[in-house]
């Protein structure tokens, strides 16, 4: 019998350390970005940072808890069904009851008496990954032979949940969820060339679609969706309406420009002083660029990239299909969210109001990401342990043989 090895032995530090560093940077930057406005409004300048720190501590506890659990539990049908059901109920409560709170025009927050507010759509991200990983891993054989039948039903469930987010209305959130679902299907094990063609088509199609919308002048939209077009028009040239719809992106440019190569110094941002709204959430990274400069911002991006790549790599190497899908899902999710956030604040794609992972302020987002990291750490350890055990078995066979 192989000697029992403690689970902490398999802890993947190349995931944990980047995560901790990013969260640390986040806490500092949240304080920097939010304190001025809080002070001006006669509030405790550290309140948002402290709030985030509480969520961070909670996150660490969650990670520990998830890491300690056996992977088998996450592959248990009833656990997944129950979780999916809970998320669905929360989403319905958020949208259709008085427990839902409207922020920035979207009824996306759920008031939990005594605990504060949660954003169920955030948790749906990891839920979709988890749910689809489970279903797909169970149907690996059918994926090759009958992809449609294997994926249609779970896909409908997922689309239904995404629909509950879209009607909040949170288009940015729904788009991310949809992209995550698509990624899960592409990584399901289906012919990778199909994936490549399909994924490429989505990317090129989106680019052409944006061009078409801007070029159309908004005529293709019904009146009640006019605001969607406005976002695209302003995206094409934010300076057209620098005081109105282009206000945020223009001020994001100013922040990035102010920072330059060397930055204005931590705490010295001008743009956070009322010029750039949502400084500590959607435009967190603009403030990072302004205060800490391009070089450090790129280093932070590299750290995040390293984390994403590392997670994907665990996914690529994983033997267990569920583990592999989970990791590719989580890595893809972080990548998608980063792409939509950074793309938005740098004017590459239309703004959607998505936060920057780990660094932007937001309890739900951090909790969800931490849960994801916890799962990935567990998977990484699980895979290592299996490999280790295999080796031990092989060695025993060799010695015995």
């Amino acid at each position: 019998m192989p000697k029992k090895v403690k689970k902490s032995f398999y802890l993947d530090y190349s995931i944990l350390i980047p995560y901790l560093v990013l969260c640390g940077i986040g806490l500092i930057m949240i304080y920097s970005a939010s304190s001025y406005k809080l002070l001006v409004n006669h509030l405790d300048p550290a309140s948002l940072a402290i709030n985030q720190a509480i969520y961070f501590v909670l996150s660490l506890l969650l990670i520990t808890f998830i890491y300690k659990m056996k992977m088998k539990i996450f592959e248990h049908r009833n656990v997944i069904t129950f979780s999916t059901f809970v998320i669905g109920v929360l989403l319905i409560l958020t949208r259709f009851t008085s427990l839902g709170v409207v922020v920035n025009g979207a009824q996306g927050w759920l008031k939990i008496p005594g605990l504060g507010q949660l954003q169920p759509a955030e948790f749906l991200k990891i839920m979709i990954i988890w749910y689809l990983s489970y279903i797909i891993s169970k149907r690996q054989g059918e994926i090759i032979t009958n992809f449609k039948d294997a994926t249609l039903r779970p896909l409908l469930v997922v689309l239904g949940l995404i629909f509950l987010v879209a009607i909040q209305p949170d288009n940015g959130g729904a788009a991310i969820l949809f992209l995550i679902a698509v990624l899960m299907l592409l990584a399901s094990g289906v012919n990778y060339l199909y994936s490549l063609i399909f994924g490429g088509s989505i990317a090129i199609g989106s680019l052409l679609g944006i061009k078409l919308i801007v070029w159309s002048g908004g005529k293709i939209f019904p009146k009640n969706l006019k605001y969607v077009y406005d976002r695209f028009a302003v995206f094409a040239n934010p300076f057209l309406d620098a005081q109105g719809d282009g206000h945020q992106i223009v001020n994001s440019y100013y922040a990035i420009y102010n920072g330059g190569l060397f930055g204005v110094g931590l705490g010295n941002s001008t743009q956070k002083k009322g010029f750039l709204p949502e400084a500590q959430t959607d435009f967190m990274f603009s403030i990072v660029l302004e205060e800490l400069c391009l070089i450090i911002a790129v280093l932070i991006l590299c750290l995040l990239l390293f984390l994403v790549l590392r997670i994907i790599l665990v996914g690529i190497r994983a033997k267990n299909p569920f583990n592999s899908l989970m990791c590719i899902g989580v890595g893809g999710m972080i990548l998608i969210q980063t792409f939509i956030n950074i793309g938005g604040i740098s004017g590459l794609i239309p703004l959607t109001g998505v936060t920057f992972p780990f660094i932007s302020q937001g309890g739900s987002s951090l909790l969800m990401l931490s849960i994801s990291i916890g799962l990935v750490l567990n998977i990484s350890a699980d895979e290592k342990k299996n490999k280790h055990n295999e080796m031990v078995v092989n060695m025993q066979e060799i010695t015995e043989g």
Partner: protein
Amino acid sequence: MNKHRLKRYLRSKNLNPVNNRKKVGVILFATAIGVFLIFAIRFSYIMMGNIGNVSLAEKTAELYKGSQIIKAKRGSILDRNGDPIAEDATSYSLYAILDKNYLGINKKKLYVQEKDREKIAEVLNKYVGLEKSYVISQLKPQKNKQGKTITNVEFGTEGKGLTLETKTNIEKALKKENIAGIYFTEHPARSYPNGEFASYLIGYTAYADKNDDTKGMKGVLCIEGAYNKQLKGTDGKIVYQKDSSGNAIPGTQVVKKEAKDGEDIQTTLDRNLQLYLEDLMDSVEEKYSPESMTAMLVEAKTGSILAATQRPSFDPVTKEGLSGENALWRNLLVEDSFEPGSTMKVFTVAAAIEAGVFDPNATYQSGKIQVDDTQISDWNPAGVGTLTYRQALAWSSNVGMVHLEEMMPTAWQEYIKKFGFVKSTNSGLLNENIGLLQNSTTVDRAMTAYGQAISVTDFQMMQGFTAIANNGKMMKPQYIKKIVKSDGTEKVYNPKEVSQPISSTTANQVLTYMQDVVNDATYGTGYGIFNIDGYNVSAKTGTAQISENGKYLDDQYIHSVVQIAPTEDPEYIMYVTIKKPTIPAGTSASSIVAEISNPLLKRALDLGVSDQ
């Protein structure tokens, strides 16, 4: 066919699910690297400072940096003793707020309430003179042409240009009654506390930009116009950093450029004499309605102008007189040239004495004289028989002057120049006229001896007279005593001797002969008219013909006088011209002129205003 082949090809490349996923993972891996690379490039691009053709450097500067103009105070115009003639002020205009949403702390109603309308009308009637019914109708709720409710109303021209005093009175009266809703806006303004006061010498001011009173005032006409640059000063500039609502961040204000207040111009005018002169002019204008009039009182030894004015004139505050058909827009003292007539004879006699051709006791036959093809007559063509040349001046004989001119034909033409005619006095005022000399024929030249065929300005005449009054030394007529810069440094305008056309002896001799004008009972044209009790006066009258359309008018003249007093040591020169007055029966034109010149000169003599 191709489709099938493609499908087949794709199928042939199919792997097992695990390997397919691995490939997807690798693709995702590569995509992540690509995406992050694009971000880094995009950030670098933005950092370079241009998005399309928009410069972020310019935009951020616009966003963060504000500036504010510090208005320079326009310099004052003062009289010789430092009393203000024109100074910067603020004017106020009334408005009422009718908007019912205009509430203060604790929902205090700050708009005009219905119950207060009557009382407000009373107050505005009392202090501004507005019709009560007009005020009440203005205060009722109204809609504009677009059908929107009007939120604030003004009260026409009468509700504008109010003084601080009026504003304070209204505010006090309303506060006593606890009435809200009446407010004032401030406008830069220039006050002229003396009203109509040497208006065409001082000038007036208007908004530099009609549509934007924050641009301040600019001078128009005369001193305000000619010295606008010195008076207006230079505006300063404050730069500051703006917060997100565009307000200055406290402590960031930096004075980029100090405002430099305008320079004060102290004139040579004497406020009391000037006011007196304006009164005298008003009364004569009213009584005899002349087409125009000018009057100047000058210090004999320095050329300093103590009082000077003209009619028509204007009020620099109300601008009355600057519009309508009587509006002149011309400073008659320097811009208008006219044939002076007999007052010119003073210079003819002076030139003859200086040229050595004048024998006061030599005689000639008065009445007429033939010059080439033209007969020149005295004002009384019958003449008064034989006259001495001294009497010729007193009686204002044209014939006598022509004789003198014929004795010094070349010299006289030179003396015309020496006395400063047909030359600028360099007054510094706008559009100065230098006059015209017509001397191509013998007749023309003869006529110049009695003030025709030559046109002059008041300033030129006055300058010439200083040579007679000041021992032969001709002084430039000056209206500025000194200019004081905002830092206190002064530029003093000392009396300026232009030249000395005649000797002291000649000058005094002319003064003696000019006394005959008022003292010679037989021949003096100003006898009993231009005398001033208690002082010896030298004078010369003038009744100049007016040339219009190439012909001299018959019954209309420019009546004028020059008085120099006291004869023994002249202190003042008074010069008055009245064009085309309506002369009532039994009144002489000279007495009308004397109604202005005598009282003013006497007051100056009595008060001893002169610095000498």
